[in-house]
């Protein structure tokens, strides 16, 4: 009987439906908001016109389809069969698409390609963006015309409704929904079946239903179907679809869909020939953000100010007009047809035990393939970002996933394995309902992000309850103080306390969740807050009040890059050099070897490519003589003697600045030459000796004395230095001891050497020949330098093995590229397990293959060995370049200067150790780091030594004065930098350069350098 009724109703429905499918090739053009914005409608028009012109009406059907979600690839066209996925389609592609479609071929150039591997994917299910999704709610998106009820019926639409109305009772439907475990998709995830049951059982003759239709464009009929089933199940006879007016397209489509549903007898009196009635109205709201809160929404629909009301009573008992009301969001309803159609068991097979099914999220932020995605609940963040999202543009570091928009929470990189489901999202301090997933990378300042969130929440607070109205404002003020450098450290505790008060005491969800971004970031990113407050540092270099310009802000030494760049553009090289040397006396060196973090945050980089700051620096320092900046000098300082131990970048910088303000400084160096790692760690092909010597000369010229071949602990002691009249000592002894691999016979087998020792020998010109087949173990700069040096020392084959993948390699990517150009082989996920010897001679290294396993605290996956994957790499030389440590043998075992991890222990603020007058810096304190970081230590130590000796610092005085420097930009009419592309340096030919140690990277021509400098946007001049 009921089966017959169902069949009859479906037949009746289908009678009115003309799905127009047949054997045609369906060419669907996305009609979602994203694609429309990118010109999707023009593509649709072009395809339609082209099909018509070719008379293909019988062969193909061109139509608009609902949003498949891949918004960043828009406009998107799907040709079915076999669901070819074309992206970034232009109107001019219409002819090619049509021809290919008719011929059953594919248009290769429009396919989606992996930006890293370049691999092309043909059909929708193959595209990684879709491959890892599970589509229940969005099952028809991209396949049917969302405005056609016939299309919807043709794919099985309204079958669930017919089943519900003709063969199920309300309680049976509620039971099925309860068993499915479906939870509310719009809020905190209340059990849907339970909510329906409460509404059904609430006393009252008239019941209402409200659908919060704030998402899911193009699913109108599916939402309507779910909604009508729900109304039938709970006994609601009138419903309201709540829409925000801003989205007129959604409003228009929903109106049309409701009208259609009435025409088809799916709404109104006697639905599907039953005695079930449902009238549905559309409510267009111009209300605020808070109207998303259910009680505020009810107030808005009743014509009141959209502010929340106290609960209980809950809407299921007293809702719209005081009557029992079922209120759910569109996605919840959109799940219902599938559950009724395919059954609760099927639904439970998706997702997790507690969170069955799927969830639609909007994936935004620093991700390659953003858009609307539907995930099986429990999908990991890593899958989301790296599989579906295609990773982070520029392969920058993943910093955090922000879940839930302005009232959500952030999880750090360490949580990449976190499953996205109700429980874990709630644990983050967010709710599933907000559906926003924003990927943040290292260029995002967490504090600034939080500031924008809390300011938004403060603006959107309805103002009703005090904690939200005042509290959100106060929190916003506090966070603004932090990003503007006005806060003190105690504010963090106040902020945290206030956030908890607001969370605990606010009336509605808006206030209760507004503090989430603050609370979660204070938990996971507290040091970033602290950096803003104490060091006035924004690691992302985005907080404008703290950041004069991102380049100078990210420079460890704080070099005033925008000023010298501006001067180079004007040809004023001497001034430029002096400004550089004010904070870093090694422009020539750093122009060659610096990893230039200054370029990573360059504003111009957001436009096209960052300014080639390092090249400009190198150019100007090659061009001009090393002119000293003018520091205030105190003649009485010449009677103050300071000893510097170690002539590396830290020591030399320290000596230089002390000399510039008049101190008598002597640098003691254990090696026969000065320069430290700059001399013995970096091969000549990256840093020619004469360049180094020139800049060391300048330091001597400034008044510092250097005594080489004098080793602390061997030739003198710290006590001895003081006794000899030095009033302060700076220890910049570096980190020259190579770490060991922990393999048998590593230390005594001939042919095994550590990377630092190898490079030192090479750089000191010691007679060392590389092995014929040299294997370098490690992935850092030393490994790459050693490999390339080995090549130049006569190796025939050089192979670098690294236990992780290239992505994780610490070496600079340009050095890796150059190494590859020089035919050095890199083998990843390989770890050494033993040395192979024959007759006391090294013949190879035994390795095993690795895989990446669980993550460490930084979110990096730990490599784990693959059992039985051992192999032997033939080698007659093995260079272990797996890091260095300071060699502190010169200190007594119980010295107060010994710090953690075998380093010098000094105060991070003053760099002074527990012994008065003894300072330390550079690699000896920080472990192996860069030249520019060592320089910062050197300068900081010099200023601290001044303060230690005289109570004030002339160096600081000068640096403070320089803060206000302003180099006028070149007038726009004289120079247009807009169209100029970033200059690349000339390089020596890879074949030619392998044989010798001549410099690989060459200098820019003057005109190129000046034009490059003129590309600078001068963001340092921005007014606040």
């Amino acid at each position: 009987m009921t089966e017959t009724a169902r069949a009859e109703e479906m037949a009746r429905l289908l009678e009115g439906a003309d799905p127009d499918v047949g054997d045609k090739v369906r060419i669907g053009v996305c009609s979602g908001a994203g694609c429309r914005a990118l010109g999707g409608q023009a593509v649709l028009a072009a395809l339609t016109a082209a099909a018509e012109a070719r008379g293909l009406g019988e062969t193909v059907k061109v139509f608009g389809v609902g949003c498949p979600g891949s918004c960043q690839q828009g406009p998107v066209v799907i040709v079915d069969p076999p669901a070819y996925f074309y992206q970034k389609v232009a109107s001019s592609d219409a002819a090619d698409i049509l021809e290919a479609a008719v011929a059953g071929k594919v248009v290769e150039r429009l396919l989606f390609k992996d930006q890293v591997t370049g691999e092309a994917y043909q059909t929708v299910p193959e595209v990684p963006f879709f491959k890892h999704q599970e589509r229940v709610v969005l099952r028809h998106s991209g396949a049917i015309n969302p405005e056609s009820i016939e299309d919807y019926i043709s794919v099985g639409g309204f079958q669930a409704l017919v089943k519900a109305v003709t063969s199920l009772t309300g309680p049976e439907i509620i039971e099925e929904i309860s068993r499915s475990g479906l939870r509310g998709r719009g809020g905190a995830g209340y059990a849907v079946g339970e909510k329906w049951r409460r509404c059904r059982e609430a006393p009252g003759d008239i019941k209402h239903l409200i659908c919060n239709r704030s998402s899911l464009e193009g699913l109108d009929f599916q939402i309507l179907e779910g909604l009508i089933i729900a109304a039938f199940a709970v006994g609601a006879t009138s419903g309201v679809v709540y829409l925000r007016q801003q989205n007129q397209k959604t409003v228009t489509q929903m109106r049309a869909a409701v009208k259609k549903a009435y025409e088809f007898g799916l709404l109104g009196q006697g639905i599907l020939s039953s005695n079930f009635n449902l009238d549905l109205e559309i409510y267009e709201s111009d209300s605020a953000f808070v109207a998303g809160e259910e009680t505020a929404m009810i107030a808005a629909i009743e014509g009141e100010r959209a502010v929340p009301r106290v609960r209980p009573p809950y809407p299921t008992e007293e809702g719209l007009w005081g009557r029992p009301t079922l209120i759910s969001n569109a996605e919840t309803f959109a799940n219902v047809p599938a559950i009724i159609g395919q059954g609760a068991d099927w639904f439970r097979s998706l997702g997790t035990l507690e969170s069955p099914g799927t969830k639609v999220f909007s994936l935004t932020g620093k991700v390659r393939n953003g858009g609307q995605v539907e995930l099986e609940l429990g999908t990991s963040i890593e899958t989301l970002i790296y599989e579906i999202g295609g990773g982070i543009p520029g392969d920058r570091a993943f910093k955090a996933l922000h879940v839930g928009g302005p009232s959500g929470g952030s999880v750090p990189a360490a949580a990449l394995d976190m499953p996205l489901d109700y429980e874990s999202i709630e644990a983050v301090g967010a709710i599933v309902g907000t559906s926003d997933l924003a990927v943040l990378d290292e260029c995002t300042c967490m504090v600034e992000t939080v500031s924008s969130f809390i300011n938004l929440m403060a603006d959107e607070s309805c103002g009703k309850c005090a904690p939200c109205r005042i509290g959100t404002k106060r929190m916003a003020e506090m966070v603004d103080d932090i990003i503007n450098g006005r806060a003190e450290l105690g504010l963090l505790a106040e902020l945290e306390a206030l956030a908890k008060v607001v969370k605990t005491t606010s009336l509605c969800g808006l206030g209760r969740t507004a503090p989430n971004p603050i609370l979660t970031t204070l938990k996971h990113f507290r040091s970033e807050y602290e950096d803003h407050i104490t060091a006035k540092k924004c690691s992302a270099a985005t907080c404008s009040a703290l950041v004069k310009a991102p380049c100078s802000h990210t420079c460890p030494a704080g070099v005033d890059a925008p000023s010298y760049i501006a001067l180079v553009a004007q040809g004023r090289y001497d001034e430029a050099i002096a400004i550089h040397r004010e904070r870093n006396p090694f422009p020539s060196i750093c122009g060659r070897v610096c990893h230039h973090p200054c370029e990573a945050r360059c504003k111009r980089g957001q436009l096209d490519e960052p300014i080639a700051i390092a090249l400009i620096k190198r150019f100007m320092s090659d061009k001009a003589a090393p002119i000293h900046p003018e520091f205030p000098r105190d003649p009485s300082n010449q009677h103050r003697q300071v000893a510097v131990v170690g002539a590396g970048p830290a020591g030399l910088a320290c000596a230089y600045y002390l000399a510039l303000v008049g101190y008598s400084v002597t640098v003691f160096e254990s090696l026969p030459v000065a320069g430290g790692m700059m001399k013995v760690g970096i091969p000549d092909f990256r840093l020619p000796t004469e360049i180094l010597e020139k800049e060391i000369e300048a330091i001597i010229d400034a008044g510092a004395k250097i005594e080489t071949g004098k080793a602390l602990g061997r030739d003198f002691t710290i006590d001895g230095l003081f006794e000899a009249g030095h009033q302060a000592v700076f220890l910049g002894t570096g980190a020259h001891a190579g770490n060991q691999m922990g393999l048998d016979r590593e230390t005594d087998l001939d042919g095994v050497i550590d990377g630092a020792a190898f490079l030192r020998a090479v750089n000191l010109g010691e007679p060392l020949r590389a092995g014929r087949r040299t294997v370098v173990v490690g992935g850092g700069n030393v490994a790459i330098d050693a490999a390339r040096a080995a090549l130049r020392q006569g190796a025939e084959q050089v192979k670098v093995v690294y236990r992780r993948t290239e992505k994780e390699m610490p070496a600079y990517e340009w050095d890796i590229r150059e190494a590859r150009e020089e035919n050095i082989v890199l083998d990843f996920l390989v770890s050494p397990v033993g040395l192979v010897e024959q007759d006391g001679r090294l013949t190879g290294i035994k390795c095993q293959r690795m895989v990446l396993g669980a993550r460490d605290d930084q979110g990096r996956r730990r490599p784990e060995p693959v059992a039985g994957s051992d192999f032997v790499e033939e080698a007659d030389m093995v260079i272990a370049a797996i890091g260095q440590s300071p060699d502190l043998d010169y200190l007594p075992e119980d010295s107060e200067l010994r710090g953690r991890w075998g380093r010098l222990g000094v105060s991070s603020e003053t760099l002074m150790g527990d012994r008065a007058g003894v300072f330390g810096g550079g690699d000896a304190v920080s472990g192996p780091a860069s030249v520019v970081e060592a320089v910062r230590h050197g300068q900081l130590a010099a200023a601290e030594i001044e303060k230690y000796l005289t109570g004030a610092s002339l160096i600081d005085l000068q640096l403070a004065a320089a803060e206000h420097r302003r180099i006028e930009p070149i007038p726009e009419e004289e120079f247009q930098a807009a169209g100029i592309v970033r200059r690349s340096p000339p390089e020596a030919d890879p074949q030619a350069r392998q044989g010798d140690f001549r410099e690989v990277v060459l200098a820019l021509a003057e005109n190129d350098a000046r034009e490059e400098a003129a590309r600078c946007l001068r963001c340092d001049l921005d007014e606040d």
Partner: protein
Amino acid sequence: MKTKTETFEITLNGSSVSARGGETIMEVADQAGVIIPRLCHDPRLKPSGACRLCIVEVEGDAAPVPACATVARAGMTVETDTDEIRELRRALIDLFLSDHNSDCLTCSSCGSCSLQEYAYEYGVRETSLAGRAQHRVIDQDPDPFIARDMSKCILCGRCVRICDEVEAAFAIGWQGKGFDTGVGTPFGASLKKTPCEFCGQCVSTCPTGALTDALSVGKARDWETTKTLTTCGYCGVGCALELHAKNGEIVRVTAPTGVNNNNGNLCVKGRYGYTFINHAERLTTPLIKKDGRFVEASWDEALTLVADKLGAIKEDHGPGALAALASAKCTNEENYVFQKFARVGLGTNNVDHCARLCHSSTVAGLAIAFGSGAMTNSIKDLEEADTILVIGSNTTEAHPIIGLGLIQAVREKGAKLIVIDPRGIKLTKFADIWLAQQPGSDVAVLNGLMHVILEEGLADEAFIAARTEDFEALKKVLPEYSPEKVEAISGIPAEDLREAARLFGRAVRGTIIYSMGITQHTTGVDNVLSVANLAMMTGNIGRAGTGVNPLRGQNNVQGSCDMGSLPDVYPGYQKVDNAAAREKMSRAWGAELPVEPGLTIVEIMNAAAKGDIKGMYVMGENPMLSDPDVGHVEEALENLDFLVVQDIFLTETASMADVVLPGATFAERDGTFTSTERRVQRIAKAIEPLGQARDDWKIITALSTAMGYPMKYSSAEEIMTEIASVAPSYGGISYERIAREGGLQWPCPDADHPGTAILHKDAFARGLGRFHGVEYRPPAEEPDVEFPLVLTTGRVLQQYHTGTMTRRSEGIDEISCVGCAEISPRDAKDLGISKGDTIRLITRRGEIEATAKVTRRSRPGIVFMPFHYKEAPANKLTNPALDPIAKIPEFKVCALRVERA
């Protein structure tokens, strides 16, 4: 409404306390004496949960819940004062203070500010968030009563909610959102340009100094004043209020919540119309007119002169040449003493007062139909009705606090409201049906309603059979009043009439409320009888939520009638012409009493004009403004040989007197008023009478003694004891009981009787209710070619009666449209009149000038004019034609011509 019947226990701070179903945690705690702090809560309002200060811990709940909005459940365990809760409250107070202009040194609310109190209690000395942004809104357009300093506003929303939920004025609302949320008027307009009624409910509920009483600024703070609980001296609702006095001056008026029908609410007059009390023009010494000028006199001199003059007239012309006008503004005790003086001292029954001009038709009509002429039910009881019919009552303006209750019943309890009124008064906005009848067509309209009810079988046959008589008389006339015919008479569309008839006919508890729109007609008694017919026909008498409820106008108009300040009855409505009654009173008063009933007011004036009345004593009345055809009144008074006026100001009438005696205001004396619901309530002395002014009863007893009939009472209470001994319905009333029971509703025949909330419960006062067949008669004067419009008169909210008090109260005139006549836009257009024009209103009796107020409240053909203004005395125009029985003049209808002045 939730039923609050079931009782259960909850655990509150470790103790078991009892709660009733539907009660909130806060209500339960309040009853248990556990005080939970609150800023956004007011028992008059629905819970809002906005301030969050009342958060408490409920076992099992993850987060604290607001006690004000959380309903107690059986077995619930609640902690209201844990360390965590206190800490959260401290943080909230800190937040409030951070956005509050803590100007405690000069703030009017210092000492009565809840925020200050909690800051003290929770030890939040100052905000930890000092220096942060504050939202400060300067009130750019102050008004006379409500001082707004929004820098102290904590956005609790009580003012907005009370303006909406209680006052239904919607004058203020929310603006903006987030931190910039504010409270204000639409487009920031002055309150004077909004529907603000200046009731000050917003001020009364404001927990801080954001809203304060402008009249009181700088005068006294809460702890400096002595507070006297008393009863309002304005209309008949009888609101409880508290007079705040400092140094002999009333500096503020408030109302306590939970006391009396008004529950903390007042209208603009009650709350702000008090500065007349200490007004400079108050009479503070007796005045004697010499050579046309008043000169100050001693009490001895004045009383001797009065006694001599009145004694001489009595001597020369007989007691019938004397008349006394009592006052509906004076206390029961004073009215009692006054009529006793008239009857015994002067020896005449010529005693009447302005009740004649408002509800004499009620007294007469209901006496005939029911046997008793007062409001059958109680004020609170009106809200129990499921259907309310309001006819001829502009309740929200004339009886504002009852008006609030009606609107509340409609908005909160879903009662149906039918309004029959020619004007678009405020109540029509809340009405399910508004029938706008032509003034004077009420009998036809009421008959029309009954026609439909009868025709459609909606009459309560059982009630008619069991409780009434003479239904046939009514039945005989009804067939003539088909809706179509009624439409022709009244202008009410027949279908609307039918709808209304069905609505009222189907009511389970239907109540009828009326006022002077029914009574002040030449058909006043007919109108009242028709109302009684309708109530009886539908069985709506004697039960809660039903009844015939005439709303009495003045504060003690009910009491002054009860006290026998009428020419035909002694106290307790004992008939003068009833020999037994006369005998009883004669014995009680120890004197012979005149036999003939006396003259009514208009008859007295006519007699004076003719020279039959030669001496008159007026206590607290101002017939020169209140009576119809005042030109005629003036002639009458001028014609007198001797006129004594006892009042608090030199009124238009007093100016004509030979001797003026200074009386006391309600703030300066003890006594009782009887409100419209027959409730006898206390007034209490808050300050000493100004200057030499005296309690009115003291003046009368002194005069009586001087005239040879000694009266001696030591206090007002002693007078009440005498009243109880002679007036049967007051038999059980005493000051002691009033104090204990908060007022007593008569009939209260003996000390054990609880008073009577609902009259005619099991039987009518006269036994069976009596139907009357009433035929429609047109008003005495109808529009014609010469006078094409209808003039109807009445009150406005802000003014009271002849303005003696309100017009001397600071600020009242500023917010009312002084001397304005309301005219419809269409008539205005036809006559070329614009808003604010001076217009001339002309009737057959005279003409006045007024300011045109063009408003849709007036329908075409009808001009409304309040009678309060001496600048534009509407009663120069009104028709003195009288109802044949009640002798009430037809204030509500006369023919009018309007011209541009």
